[in-house]
């Protein structure tokens, strides 16, 4: 069954994650540990807290990495997610399932971070009166080397909307896309994280891509 023990319920798909109050300083580490324990215990609310922690850590690492080695190549989503995991749990947690679950949550967090960024980029452009982009324009931009320009941001936003609709059809498939696409995870990693077979991940990934491609095309027109 693809629904693993802590991903139940529609809470996973809320667009804006509830704010989680962070205690300052030293308590933070113990909080991270205890949230992980709560998650192991199957508490759905713990996922929200866990997500928030992961989200913060990802942003922090992304920035730190950016500071250290500016350059596109140094910043793959996979390396970000892995580093976040190590920073959050270090050697304390070697359990592969925990790691895989972390990766799935991290993928969701990455999705929100990146979509948030794309949204701000697009909003700043729309604010200056530029029109939205057609699917063709978006495809052309994707093929170009133009950096993170606005049509690309619009593509991500369209993907985000389509993923929401996909979730209504198949939560599992939307989850697979998040892991593969936003989490930079392999077929096998995704399978472990979501508790499904690699064959299913492979099939879901293929169907979802086709379906999303069609949806994005319809969306952008």
């Amino acid at each position, binding site marked *: 069954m693809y629904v693993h023990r802590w991903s139940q319920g529609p809470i996973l798909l809320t667009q804006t994650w509830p704010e989680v109050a962070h205690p300052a300083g030293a308590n933070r580490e113990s909080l991270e540990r205890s949230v992980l324990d709560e998650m192991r215990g199957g508490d759905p609310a713990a996922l929200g807290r866990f997500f928030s922690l992961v989200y913060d850590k990802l942003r922090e690492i992304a920035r730190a990495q950016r500071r250290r080695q500016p350059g596109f190549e140094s910043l793959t989503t996979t390396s970000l997610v892995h580093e976040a995991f190590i920073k959050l749990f270090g050697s304390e947690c070697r359990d592969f399932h925990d790691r895989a679950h972390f990766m799935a949550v991290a993928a969701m967090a990455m999705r929100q971070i990146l979509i948030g960024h794309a949204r701000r980029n697009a909003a*700043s452009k729309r604010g200056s009166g530029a029109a939205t982009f057609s699917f063709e324009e978006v495809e052309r931009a994707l093929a170009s080397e133009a950096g993170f320009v606005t049509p690309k941001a619009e593509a991500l936003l369209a993907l985000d909307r389509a993923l929401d609709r996909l979730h209504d059809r198949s939560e599992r498939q939307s989850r697979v896309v998040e892991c593969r696409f936003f989490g930079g995870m392999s077929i096998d990693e995704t399978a472990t994280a979501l508790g499904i077979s690699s064959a299913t991940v492979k*099939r*879901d990934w293929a169907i979802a891509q086709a379906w999303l491609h069609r949806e994005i095309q319809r969306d952008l027109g």
Partner: protein
Amino acid sequence: MKGDDGAAVNVWGELETLWEMVSDLPPAEREALLASHAVEGELRAELDSLLSRASAAEAFFDRLAAVVAEASHAAAFEGLQGDAAAVVQEDGSGSVDSDPLVGMTLGRYQIIERLGQGGMGVVYRALDLQLRRTVALKLLRARASNDARGKERLLAEARAAAALDHPNICTIYEIGETPEMGAFIAMGFYPGRTLAQALERGPLSLTTALDYVTQIARGLGAAHERGIIHRDVKPANVIVTADGVVKLLDFGIARMTDVDVSRDGVMPGTIAYMSPEQVTSRPLDQRTDLWSLGVVLYEMLAGERPFRGESAGAVLYAILEQPPPLVSTLRRDVPARIDAVVARLLATDPAHRYGSAEDVIAAVSSNRDEDGSPVLRAPALSKPHRPWARRTQYGVATLAVGAAIAIAIVSWPIVAKLARGNDQRTALASKEAVSPERTAAMDLYAQARREVLFRTDSGRRYARDLFQQAIAADSTFAAAHAGLALIALTPGDHSNRSIASAEASARTAVRLDSMSPEAHAALGRVLFSRYRLAEAEKHLKRAVELDGPQTDLREFLIWLYAFMDRRGEVLEQATLFERNKPGGAIAIAELARGLLVNGRCDEALAQLDRLKHLRPPPARAGNYAAQCYATRKQWPQAIDAMSRVAQTNEQANAYLGFMLARGGHTDSARVIRDRLLAQVSRGDGNAYGLAVVYAGLGDFDSAFEWFEKSYEDRSLRPDIMGPIFEDVRRDPRFEKLRAKLGIPNR
């Protein structure tokens, strides 16, 4: 999965099965297999539609994955220099990643990457090709580009800032101007993150916050010493390096591109750290930086800014009119002394702030407490939030002055916004704001209040003039009348004429505004001087009630109860006072008095011990400590404590004489007695002091003679009901005095 979409779900499930079956097959075989399974209709159409775009979709997603890499790079980049994202939105300059300058060489600097953008321009990481070092290069968006002289002045100022060499100040390597770059500043590049970024993740630990605030204050102190004001202290201008060293950015260059507060559409965050004098375009000195430091400290501890709002106008209003809640109400581990530090940094009136950054460092690092002892309060700081219904004239006046200043100095759009707000208060404020008389009166009042704080005779005289001017400007201004009443009660001038004039002023104040705590306090104080103690109690209680739990006016009530020998109520009120003014030196001292009059000297001394780091300690703290020792018959300690107070406080000499006499130093006590006698005969001493020394010497006949006189000249003090005068009070003649005062024997 959605329940209301059952058919689709079924189709979807079947589709997955079919996809698995046929997707890897060549088209011909796929066709045959699907035909043999009789897959047709909607399901078949959907399957074909998806299969037909499978490879296009895969390519599309491959390219989109590259976008994700770019976006994560960009998202990581976002906010690197604090509010870059906000600024990008503000000026619509769009994507930060497609900066044409990156890769170019300007002068001797090769631009490596764009770090961020702030109000003052764009910051790049660049390589100094000559010196082979990495620098942060700020290209200034000089607003003054048409004004060559103005720009020259600004650059000169920035050059002065560049001369600052301090570990907590970002080093400036070069300031210059080139045709290609315009004005630019090359400065140290510090790997780390801005405090703004650190704060995105919530509040800091107490230790970290105090460490950072100390480091920032050190940097500010070094600059202030050289007469340089930062003007733009905010988390985005503070870099915390990986080693935890704080570097203050952008010294003295805020002025180069003044943020125009009057511009409609200014981001609320832009002014969140500005001082009241800054948002009202008044002259600035170093204390504006201390205010901003207070905002930063508050945010580090509370995780939120003290002054917030949806619009710049709302933030402006908050800065001028809405004191934030105590940090300790937002997190428990913040001690009272830090509340007091924050409150003092965020005093609306710069005169009430610390005088220097060094003072801030001392206050933060020691465990001393703040002297929170205003005779009259600074309304914006200590006035608790009251329901609007109870804010009458005085409250409106306070609001009005903020709004009026805004109209006069800031500009119309923000005030218009303020007035448009659906908040009843702002609407009223704008209506009231048209009275320039009240504005002038409020300014004079504020100035007078400041003078009173100095507690000097010349200060009082000056304050009296200012109160009178305030009344001349607006004769209906109750608080000014109340201030005049209190000034008239200056110690040493309790002639009937001055008391009568004080009473007239106080009664006028109450008549003008029966809801004004100041008015009731003044009247209560006057009635106290007239020994109409029951009435005094009524008005002082009313003042405290009107002013809310945190009121400083409670001090009057404590004195009254002490004088009336109502020891339980002294302690009760003093306890409330200290609880609501956590860390306030006067409140702590008064709590000690409450304990002292109840004979709990050990506890009183423990409280006073909290004040021993104050330089100088409040006079009354030494007085109460000495009385505690005297009560315990520890005469050497008592004399030691009292003689310190007596160095600066003439009244203390009488108590010192008393203690010297009781401690066996009769000759010294007689010297003091003779001095006091001489003073009285000159007309500048008081009967009470002399009575006290006589009582110390055991000459009760003379003592009571002078106590009788002190009743007349109103110099009798509440201490007379304290434990050290117990033998005086056992004398039958004291009963007569009691009866005259209307104070029953317990």
